[in-house]
C-alpha cells in the first residue's frame, strides 16, 4: 500500500514539474534569443511526464504502449521535416492528430465499465471534449487539404449554409444534453462523435484560402480546449494547464488575425468568417500607371537611404525569398538601411512570413511588425512591395465605400517612392482595385517576382559603386 501511494506521489510530482516547465517554455518563447531554451524546457517536461506516467501502478501492458510510442515517432519525424512553405498545412494536420487523440480517449472513457455512474458535470465535460475534438479532427483535415491545394481553395457557399451548420451543431448539443440527463442512453453517444465530424467538414467548406490564418488559429484554440476538457474528465491538472495554455494561445492568435483582417470578435467566435467579399463594382477604366525597368529601379534603390520591403504571400509562391535576400545583402553592402514590413496576415498562418524570410537568412531584427514599421514610412525613400496587394491598399484607410475599409494596412503610400512588383494590373484577392498603383510616386515593376528581383540584383552588382 505504501509503495503504491509512494509511486502515485512521485507521478504527481513529475506532473507538477512538467506543468512548471511548460509555462516556462512559453515564457522563453517571447524572444528569439531565449526561444530555443523554451523548446528544451518543453521537451524535458514532456519526457518527465511520460516517464512518470509509465510508473502508474495500473499499467499491465507495456508492449502496446511501446509499439504505439515507436509508431508515433516514426510518423512524427517526417512531419517535423516538412518544408517551411508547408508548415501551415502541417500545423493543421497536427491539430487534427491532437484532436483525434483527445476524442479517442474521451470515447474510451465513456464506454469504460465503472462502479459509480459518472457525475452530470463530468458527463457534460466529456461531451464537450468529444464534440470539440471531433469537429477539430475533420475541420483541421479540411483546412490542411485546402492549404495543400488538394481541395479547392475558393469558398463553396450555398443558400441556408449558416442555418444547416448551426443546425448540425445544435443537434449535437441537444443530444449531449439528453446524455447528461439520461446517461443510460449510451446508444446516443456515437451521435455526438459523428455529427461534429460532419460539422467540421461543413464549417470549412465556405472558407477561402485567404482566411486560413484565422481558421488555423481558431482550430488551435478548439484543440486546446478539448484537451483541457479531457483533463477535467481524467482529473489531470497537467492536462488542464497544457490545454488552457494552448487554448489561450490559439484564441489570442485568432483575435490578432481577425483584427488584421478587420473582422469582428463574434465573427471569429462563431466561425462565420466565410462570406466572400462582394467585389467593388468593376470600374475597369484604364487609368495610366507609371512603370519602370529593373535598371531604373536599381538606380533608385541604390540612391536611397532607407528602403522598406513589403513581402506578401505572392513572394513565397514565386519562391523569390532567396533573391530578395540577395537584394537585401547587395543594398546593405552599399549602406542602404533595409527593413521588412510584415503584415500579420502575410502568409498562410500567423507569423509565417517571418519564418520564410528567416529561412532565407534575413536577420530577424530586420523583420518588423506592421505596428513597428508604420511610423517609419514617411521617412522611407523607397517602399518595395513584392507579392502583396490588399494589405497595402490605402482605400482601407480613406475610402469608406471600399469592402476592406477599416482593415489595418501598411502605410506604404507615405513613402517617397513606392515600387510594386506585379505580374499585371489584375485586381487583388478580394477583387478590389488598389489606388496605390495610380499614384504619381508609384512605379510599377511588371514581371515575375523572382525574375525581377534577380534582375535588380544583377543591375546593382553590374553597375558597381557609382
Amino acid at each position, binding site marked *: 500500500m505504501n509503495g503504491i501511494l509512494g509511486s502515485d506521489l512521485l507521478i504527481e510530482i513529475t506532473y507538477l514539474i512538467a506543468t512548471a516547465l*511548460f509555462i516556462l517554455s*512559453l515564457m522563453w*518563447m*517571447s*524572444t*528569439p534569443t531565449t526561444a530555443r531554451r523554451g*523548446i528544451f524546457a518543453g*521537451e524535458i517536461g*514532456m519526457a518527465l511526464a*511520460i516517464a512518470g*506516467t*509509465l510508473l502508474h501502478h*495500473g499499467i499491465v*501492458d507495456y508492449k*502496446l*504502449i511501446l509499439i*504505439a510510442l515507436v509508431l*508515433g*515517432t516514426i*510518423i*512524427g*519525424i517526417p*512531419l*517535423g*521535416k516538412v518544408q517551411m512553405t508547408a508548415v501551415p498545412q*502541417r*500545423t493543421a494536420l*497536427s491539430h487534427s492528430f*491532437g484532436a483525434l*487523440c*483527445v476524442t*479517442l480517449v474521451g470515447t*474510451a472513457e465513456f*464506454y*469504460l*465499465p465503472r462502479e459509480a455512474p459518472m457525475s452530470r458535470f463530468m458527463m457534460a465535460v466529456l461531451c464537450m471534449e468529444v464534440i470539440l475534438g471531433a469537429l477539430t479532427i475533420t475541420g483541421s483535415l479540411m483546412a490542411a487539404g485546402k492549404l495543400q491545394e488538394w481541395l479547392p481553395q475558393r469558398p463553396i457557399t450555398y443558400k441556408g449554409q449558416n442555418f444547416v451548420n448551426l443546425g448540425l451543431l445544435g443537434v449535437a448539443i441537444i443530444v449531449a444534453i439528453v446524455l447528461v440527463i439520461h446517461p443510460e442512453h449510451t446508444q446516443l453517444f456515437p451521435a455526438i462523435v459523428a455529427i461534429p465530424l460532419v460539422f467540421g467538414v461543413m464549417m470549412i467548406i465556405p472558407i477561402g484560402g485567404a482566411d486560413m490564418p484565422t481558421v*488555423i488559429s481558431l482550430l*488551435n484554440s478548439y484543440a*486546446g480546449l478539448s*484537451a483541457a476538457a479531457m483533463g477535467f474528465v*481524467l482529473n*489531470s491538472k497537467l*492536462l*488542464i494547464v497544457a490545454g*488552457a*495554455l*494552448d*487554448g*489561450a*494561445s490559439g484564441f489570442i492568435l485568432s483575435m*490578432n488575425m481577425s483584427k488584421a483582417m478587420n473582422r469582428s470578435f463574434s465573427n471569429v467566435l462563431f466561425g462565420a468568417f466565410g462570406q466572400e467579399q462582394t467585389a467593388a463594382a468593376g470600374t475597369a477604366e484604364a487609368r495610366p500607371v507609371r512603370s519602370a525597368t529593373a535598371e531604373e529601379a536599381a538606380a533608385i534603390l541604390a540612391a536611397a537611404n532607407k528602403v522598406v520591403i513589403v513581402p506578401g504571400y505572392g513572394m513565397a509562391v514565386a519562391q523569390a525569398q532567396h533573391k530578395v535576400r540577395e537584394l537585401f545583402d547587395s543594398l546593405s553592402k552599399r549602406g542602404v538601411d533595409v527593413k521588412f514590413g510584415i503584415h500579420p496576415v502575410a502568409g498562410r*498562418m*500567423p*507569423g509565417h512570413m*517571418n*519564418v520564410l524570410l*528567416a529561412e532565407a537568412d534575413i536577420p530577424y531584427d*530586420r*523583420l518588423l*511588425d506592421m505596428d513597428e514599421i508604420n511610423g517609419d514610412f514617411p521617412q522611407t525613400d523607397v517602399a518595395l512591395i513584392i507579392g502583396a496587394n490588399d494589405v497595402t491598399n490605402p482605400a482601407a484607410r480613406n475610402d469608406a465605400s471600399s469592402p476592406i475599409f477599416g482593415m489595418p494596412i501598411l502605410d506604404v503610400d507615405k513613402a517617397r517612392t513606392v515600387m510594386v512588383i506585379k505580374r499585371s494590373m489584375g485586381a487583388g484577392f478580394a477583387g478590389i482595385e488598389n489606388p496605390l498603383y495610380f499614384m504619381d510616386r508609384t512605379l510599377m515593376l511588371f514581371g515575375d517576382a523572382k525574375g525581377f528581383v534577380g534582375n535588380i540584383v544583377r543591375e546593382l552588382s553590374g553597375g558597381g559603386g557609382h
Partner: protein
Amino acid sequence: MKIDLLTSLYVFMLAAFIGFEVIKRITPLLHTPLMSLTNALDAIAVVGAIILAGEHKTTLAAILGTIAIISATSNIVGGFLITDRMLKMFKPSGAKKA
C-alpha cells in the same frame, strides 16, 4: 469528488490567465513556432492515452488508447522537431550566414 472538480476549475482559470499574459508578450515574429510548440505541448494528452492502453480494461479502450498514443506521439516528435528547425533559422544581424 466535488472538491476535485472545483480545484480543477481553479487550475483551469489560473492557467487561462497565465496563458493570456504569457502569450500576449510573445513577439509576432515567432507566432508560427509558437503554434507548433503549443501543439507539441498539447500532446501531453498522451499520458491519458498511455494509461488507457496500459490498463487494458477493455479491448475497446486498449485499441482506442493505442491509436491515441500514436497520434499524440507524432505531434510531440514532429512538433518539437519543426519548432526547433524554425527557431534555428532566426539569426540576428551580423551572425554568420549558414
